[in-house]
């Protein structure tokens, strides 16, 4: 509860600062606020051991929810540090965008803590609506408009489908409570209402996390949206959607008939194949990373597939490590493209090692982590997925995961090759110290988090 209040107040405070013309204070206030949020979350640790539900029992901040909150808050913190460079300090556009991100973050927190389908819907909407605006936030840029519009339309459609699913579930169970749904299902009787309802919810989430065949919007939106927003979408929005989905399918909609897991297996398979193979032919790195993001969603869906036996901490780990890598790569793209007429093609990365060693190295680390090469934490993420999938004996899916991982490495490495290909008369790319330091810290983190994976067991 405190978490929701803090983050909402923080959003309002940012708007207020804008009105009060104290825009210089925006970033520090956000930092303090988010640190406060993290602190409060840590202080609340272990509350689920004493039954303490909030908000009429519709939100429960158990350890999983808290750890998701901490992860989202930390990623948001990093996002603000990195994005701080991209918006001219002191403009109201900057505060608007920051406020929107904060509101959206509130939705993410709700999605990780909900215990009631109503809150699920509200969380999804709070998460999404600001992002529609953010995607379209470059007012003069048609591409940004297009991205925002596509995202908005398809997003609304998906919300409607999700909502209809919720409604049907309610019809079958007579309650929005997750616990009630689970009790209903544990009877072993599947009414058509709940079957249809859960299928519709599955589709609604499949859209949000962008897995095939509901992923077609993602590359366009990721490419068209302003790069910082893309970074935000691929990290927190996606992570929150997974948090919500994992909770729904892991603790409420259990057990479902075999057909559901078959459907999910199928979705993962075509997601991995389509995204990785299409990514191979992309020349625009931003779009390529969008496909990579889809492919990671396919992997993360593996956790949902095995949600009945998997602890959410592995999903948290995957989210965290993917988010770090994603933040690094999108912001590096942002800086590289910014000085060459928004050219984000692979060729634009040539000679980056000389032009900005820090960005080059951190980009390399991030890409290798996404490719799942040890000892970068991206590997452990994939490892957790594959172990779980093997435990559920979907061997064919494992083989597809493995082959597409190798294909994945191909397009990541192509960018790395470009980074280390020398070019003549390359000017240095200047970025602020804070960005440089953050990128460096993040890439070190990608290694540290690998070796310190045992910390995960604290959750």
């Amino acid at each position, binding site marked *: 509860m405190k978490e929701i209040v803090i983050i909402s107040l923080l959003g309002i405070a940012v708007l207020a600062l804008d009105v009060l013309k104290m825009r210089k204070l925006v970033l520090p206030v956000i930092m303090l606020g988010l640190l406060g949020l993290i602190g409060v979350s840590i202080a609340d640790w272990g509350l689920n051991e004493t039954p303490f539900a909030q908000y009429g029992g519709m939100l429960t901040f158990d350890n999983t929810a808290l750890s998701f909150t901490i992860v989202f808050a930390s990623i948001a913190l990093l996002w603000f540090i990195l994005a701080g460079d991209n918006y001219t300090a002191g403009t109201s556009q900057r505060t608007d965008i920051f406020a929107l991100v904060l509101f959206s973050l509130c939705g993410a927190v709700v999605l990780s803590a909900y215990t009631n389908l109503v809150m699920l819907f509200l969380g999804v909407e709070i998460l999404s609506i600001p992002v529609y605006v953010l995607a379209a936030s470059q007012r003069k840029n048609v591409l940004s408009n297009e991205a925002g519009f596509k995202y908005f339309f398809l997003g609304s459609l998906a919300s409607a489908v999700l909502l209809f699913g919720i409604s049907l579930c309610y019809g079958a169970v007579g309650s929005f409570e997750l616990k009630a749904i689970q009790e209903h299902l544990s009877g072993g009787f599947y009414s058509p209402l709940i079957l249809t309802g859960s299928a519709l919810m599955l589709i609604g989430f499949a859209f949000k996390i962008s897995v095939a065949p509901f992923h077609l919007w993602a590359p366009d939106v990721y490419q068209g949206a302003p790069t910082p927003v893309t970074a935000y979408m691929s990290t927190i929005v996606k992570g929150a959607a997974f948090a919500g989905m994992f909770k729904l399918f892991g603790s409420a909609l259990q057990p479902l008939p075999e057909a559901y897991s078959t459907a999910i297996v199928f979705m993962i398979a075509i997601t991995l194949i389509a995204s990785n193979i299409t990514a191979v032919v992309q020349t625009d790195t931003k779009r390529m990373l969008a496909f990579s993001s889809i492919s990671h969603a396919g992997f993360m869906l593996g956790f949902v597939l095995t949600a009945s036996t998997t602890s959410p901490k592995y999903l948290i780990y995957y989210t965290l490590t993917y988010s770090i890598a994603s933040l690094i790569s999108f912001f590096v793209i942002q800086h590289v493209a910014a000085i060459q007429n928004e050219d984000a093609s692979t060729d634009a990365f040539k000679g980056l090692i000389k032009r900005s060693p820090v960005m080059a190295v951190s980009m390399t680390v991030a890409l290798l982590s996404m490719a799942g090469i*040890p000892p970068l934490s991206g590997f452990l993420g994939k490892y957790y997925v594959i*172990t779980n999938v093997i435990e559920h004996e979907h061997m064919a899916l494992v083989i597809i995961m*493995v082959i597409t991982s190798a294909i994945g490495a191909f397009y990541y490495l192509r960018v790395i090759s470009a980074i*280390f290909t020398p070019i003549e008369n390359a000017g240095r790319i200047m970025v602020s110290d804070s960005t440089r330091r953050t990128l460096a810290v993040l890439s070190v983190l990608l290694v540290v988090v690998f070796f310190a994976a045992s910390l995960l067991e604290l959750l």
Partner: protein
Amino acid sequence: MLTLILLAIPLFAAVLSMAAGAKNARNLALGAGILELIITLGAFFLNGKEGSETWLTFNREWIGPLGISYAFSLDGISLVMALLVALLLPIIIYASFNRTFKSPHYFYGLMLLMAASMMGAFTTTDGLLFYVFYEFALIPIYFMILYWSEHPNKAKITLKFFIYTLFGSLFMLVSLLYLYNISGSFNMQALYEAGRSLSGSEQGWVFAGFFIAFAVKIPVFPFHSWQPATYDSAPTAGTMLLAGIMLKMASYGMVRLVVPALPEGVAEYGTWALALSAISVLYASGMAIAQQRYKLLIAWSSIAHLGVLSAGILSGNAQGIQGGIMEMLSHGILSVALFFVYDIIESRMNHDDMSKMGGIREVNPLFAFLFFIIVMGSVALPLTSGFVGEFLLLLGFYQVSPWLTAVAGLTVVLGAVYMLRAFQSMMLGPANSATQSFAPLNSHEKTVLTILVILIIALGVYPDPILSVANPSVESLLQGLNR
């Protein structure tokens, strides 16, 4: 404890090198390499002594509930492999003094990183950790080639190399995880038990996963096509690391994981693997005969020798595995030597086209003499290191498949065909205008070649220290296998 030190030295040196800058980077690296060697030798002397356990093993939980731990142990086999790394690392570093590199601190830093990862792979007793080190070694070598190669096509070649080997090793990951799913722990002993508890056909599948991974990396026909181009494009130090040490991780993996864990899988489905290994020998020898360029010739000859290696190990008996261990060490030394010869020739002639050379012996008899011993080691003449390994491999292989051994044994003949041809066409005959001015060896070339040649002969004449260290471990590895 020593295992950690062995891991830490190159790691720290790598970081130090990258941080300290270009000046003295190579001396730092050499120092680290020599220190590594000294400590490994120390471990050798400790081996088998009372109470050496605490020194030679290390075990801490990593991801406890998942049964993953930071577990290292220097048993006989690992000791020899550690020696391979620690012995060749300073030699390779010293050999690279011949050339100057841009940003040497990064070059040597990557080299040391690679040494650390290989050391890790050879000493760990945790399956997942093995995989991690196995994969990680790719990264430094990838950058070493990408950034320091002068080959026009390097981007494509490195990409192919990386993807191909990654592709292979992901199958190993699947197999590992399959075993892990049964054992619940990545401890090697647990993995062995898990593997042996599987039915024959299941073992076959798991074996297939491992084999693809290792066959790509060793490499075995038909998964080898990344190798010659990669060797060709890499800077010589990189090629030495690759051929000398890195690819041994795959054959070591066969020894450590495949043979003890999947006896039935190897017995029932290994025939294919053995056949491929034997074909590898013939195929690569044929390719070696067709080569005009020396570097490519030794690249192919390497595949031919490693075909025997893989066959011998997969035969899964003490002779094959002991031979494998010996051959890994010996092939490492010989590869480094052969590629160093390439480096010497290339630095003087600016090409390695064998048909355009000749008569170097007349101009530089010392070089020819040393090269000749290396060639003899490569054709596995007795009293060189190559013989002990190759004979044991064939001996082991024969007990499983006599006919395939006869095929693989052709390496004895074909190896002589192409190696002697290379030696004669470059070194013998009358000197021509290009070779007339072949400069004498400088002191450090002399040192490196002499050390290598001494090693080749010493290990051939008296391989007992290696074999008797490894033997108890090999026997305990094979305990409970009725083969």
